[in-house]
């Protein structure tokens, strides 16, 4: 039954006696047409688009824990499409357009809130760089607005404009950017995929890939072997470990990124702000907590927790940007594991193993890409050809020299 205002009233009047689980607790079948490893945002989005737009397949999503328990529930929920390079901008703009229609597509309230993303600049050189980026965005059909100091002051009068070590000179504003309730993204995609017959199998960890004569035939799991014609891997954070089961080494290091939330406050921060002089970004959740983060810790890690120097660095960034943040107490902090690639851009491609497909390397920007990643990966799985917007995300681009290095840092994953 579709969710609607009528259903809310009906469920309330019947004291929720007729409420059903949003998706089935599916049991693994002996074989499928397509298996997607990883029941996070990207895996579930892939299943949804594969079932709804390409159709006619028996699809399973295998998740080692519970769906939405990984990075889709551990990020800072920001969506935007303010990229510079040709390989990236059309992809992220498609993602933002999909976010805009997501709730109608899924019949699920994901609380998509286009409250605006503002990147601050603090010097003439940085203004010029943002002007270049803004023009690139406009040319690809996204929206961008360069604000001067007074423009920023009108939006956010409480920022530290004058006395900071890095005075605020202005900012690049994308009004269509914003935030989304991240758990609802996982749940919404899961429910929509399940309604189209996708089996979402939780507590089912893949322990091996079955490969015969260079072709995938299925996977081994903690709940027994499952056959498949095609297997898509969407396990960002652990891509290296899963691909190692196929004997493949990846251009990826796994790093830990921390995120933080303050105690609940009355509405103080209407949009998303990023600090241009350090690495700090902040927004306010609908529950009232300030959600913020900064740099990755910078060393290989599979532990979902980080160290204190980054906590201090992030809080210093917050204090330099908006001193009033010092009055709020930090409530929680946590870490998530990121696939950091050698050029800071993702991979959506076939692999040397026939029938095995890879979606990974999202660095710490995977959440905003969720819908486009799902659609592009579904397109690849269904047609064996890359989606138009994801042609640049090739696995072999490091060999051929077609890196997409948005930050220009070179092959050093912890600098992207």
């Amino acid at each position, binding site marked *: 039954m579709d969710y609607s205002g009528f259903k809310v009233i009906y469920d309330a009047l019947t004291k929720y006696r007729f409420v059903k689980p949003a998706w089935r607790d599916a049991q693994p079948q002996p074989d499928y047409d397509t298996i997607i490893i990883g029941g996070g945002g990207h895996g579930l989005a892939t299943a949804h688009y594969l079932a709804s737009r390409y159709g006619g397949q028996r699809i399973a999503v295998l998740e080692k824990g519970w769906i939405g328990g990984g990075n889709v529930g551990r990020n800072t929920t920001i969506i935007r499409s303010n990229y510079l390079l040709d390989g990236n901008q059309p992809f992220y703009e498609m993602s933002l357009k999909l976010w805009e229609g997501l709730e109608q597509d899924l019949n699920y309230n994901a609380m998509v809130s286009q409250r605006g993303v503002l990147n601050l600049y603090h010097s003439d050189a940085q203004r010029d760089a943002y002007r270049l980026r803004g023009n690139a965005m406009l040319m690809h059909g996204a929206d961008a607005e360069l604000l001067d100091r007074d423009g920023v002051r009108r939006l956010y009068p409480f920022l530290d404009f004058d006395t900071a070590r890095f005075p605020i000179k202005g900012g690049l504003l994308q009004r269509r950017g914003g935030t989304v309730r991240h758990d609802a993204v996982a749940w919404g995609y899961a429910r929509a995929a399940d309604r189209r017959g996708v089996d979402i199998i939780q507590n089912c960890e893949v322990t091996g890939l079955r490969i015969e004569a260079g072709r995938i035939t299925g996977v081994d799991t903690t709940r027994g072997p499952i056959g498949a014609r095609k297997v898509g891997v969407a396990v960002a954070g652990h891509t290296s470990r899963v691909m190692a089961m196929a004997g493949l*080494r990846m251009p990826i290091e*796994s790093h830990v990124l921390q995120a933080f939330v303050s105690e609940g406050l009355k509405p103080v921060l209407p949009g998303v702000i990023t600090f241009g002089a350090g690495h700090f970004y902040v927004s306010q959740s609908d529950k009232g907590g300030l959600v913020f983060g900064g740099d990755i810790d910078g*060393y*290989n*890690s599979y532990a979902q927790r980080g*160290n204190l120097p980054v906590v201090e660095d992030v809080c210093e960034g917050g204090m330099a940007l908006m001193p009033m943040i010092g009055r709020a107490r930090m409530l929680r902090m946590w870490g998530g594991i990121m696939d950091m690639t050698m050029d800071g851009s993702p991979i959506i491609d076939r692999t040397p193993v026939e029938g095995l497909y890879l979606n990974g390397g999202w660095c710490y920007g995977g959440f905003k890409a969720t819908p486009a990643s799902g659609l592009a990966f579904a397109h690849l799985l269904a047609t064996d050809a890359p989606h138009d917007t994801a042609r640049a995300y090739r696995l072999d681009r490091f060999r051929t020299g077609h890196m997409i290095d948005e930050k220009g840092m070179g*092959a050093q994953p912890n600098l992207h």
Partner: protein
Amino acid sequence: MMIPHPLLGLRDAREFTYLGDAAVIDRPDGMAEGAGDAFHDYLYLRDNPAGPHRELWYHEQGDRSWLVVTRDTVTHEILHVDLARDVALARWRGA
């Protein structure tokens, strides 16, 4: 995270800069057959294990030595530390 420096004792990890997998000590021979592929693998591909990992840390805010630290990437426990100089010399003597 504290790193037990072989010469200086326990030091805060923030004194160090992280480079990555210690396999980059083994630079391929640029004149050998198939050097292009070898350098691609050397520069871009990593084992990225969950568990013990040998990695290079540079004591930038200290004595500016390079260390080979064996660290568990799942627990952040540091299992062993050598001076990178000693590792490279041992390799050179062994070769």
